[in-house]
C-alpha cells in the first residue's frame, strides 16, 4: 500500500510543478514527472513479489512471470509521452522566438 501512496506523492510533485513554476521548461519537466507517476502506478499494479520479467527464455516458468499487459500499455504511454513532450518543447521554442522569454508571466500580449 505504501508504494501506491509514494506513487501518488510523485504525482503531486508533478502537479505542484505545473501549478506553481513560472518557467516553461520547468513546467514541461513537471508534466514529464506526472507521466512517470502514472506509468509507475500501472507497473505497480502488475507487480508481484518473487516474480520475474515476462520474457520467455530457457529455464523460466510462465507461472513466475508478472502480467505483461500493463508493461505493453506503459510502453505505448511512454511513446505518446515522448510525442507530447516534443510538441511542448516545439511550442515553447515558438513562444521564445516571439517573446524572447520562457517566463509565463511575461507572455501575455496576444498580438505584436
Amino acid at each position, binding site marked *: 500500500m505504501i508504494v501506491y501512496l509514494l506513487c501518488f506523492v510523485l504525482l503531486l510533485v508533478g502537479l505542484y510543478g505545473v501549478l506553481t513554476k513560472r518557467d516553461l521548461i520547468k513546467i514541461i519537466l513537471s508534466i514529464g514527472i506526472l507521466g512517470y507517476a502514472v506509468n509507475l502506478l500501472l507497473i505497480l499494479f502488475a507487480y508481484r513479489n518473487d516474480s520475474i520479467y515476462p*520474457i520467455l527464455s530457457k529455464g523460466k516458468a510462465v507461472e513466475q512471470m508478472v502480467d505483461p499487459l500493463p508493461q505493453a500499455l506503459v510502453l505505448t504511454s*511512454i511513446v505518446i509521452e515522448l510525442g507530447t513532450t516534443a510538441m511542448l518543447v*516545439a511550442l515553447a*521554442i515558438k513562444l521564445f522566438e516571439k517573446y*524572447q522569454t520562457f517566463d509565463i508571466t511575461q507572455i501575455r500580449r496576444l498580438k505584436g
Partner: protein
Amino acid sequence: MRQNDGMTLIVKTVTRISVWMILLYGIYIIFHGHLSPGGGFAGGVIVALAFLNVMLAYGRKFTFDWLNIGFLHDLESASATLFLVIGILGISIGGAFLANFITKGELFALLSAGTILPLNIIIGIKVGMSLFLVAWVLAGSKTVKGE
C-alpha cells in the same frame, strides 16, 4: 568560437570512438527484441542518441555534411509504409492483419518469432530517424536571447 563549431577536441575524439559502439548497441537491441528486454522502440532511441551525440559534439553543420538528412527523412517515411506492407501481406497470406506468414524458426534462436524481427527492425528505423529528426529540427531554432 563560432556557434556551430561544436565542443572541444576531447569531446570530439571520445565521440569519434564511442558513437559506433552506441550505434552497434542500438542495432543489437533492435535485433534481439524478441529474445531479451528491448526491441524496436528502445533500440531506435539508442540509434537516435548515437546521431544526437555527433550533433552535440561536432555541431549541426558537420552533421549536415556527414549525414544525408533528406535520405533519413525518406527512410523514416518509408518504414511506416513497409510496416503497412507487412501487415497487409499478413491479411493476404495469413488471414488477419499482421498475421505471421513466414517460418517461425527455432525457439530462442535469433531467426525465430516469424515477422516480429522484421517489424522490430522497421520500428527501430522509424523511431530512431523520427526522434533524431525532431531533435534536429528543434536544435535549429534560435533559443539564445537577443539573436
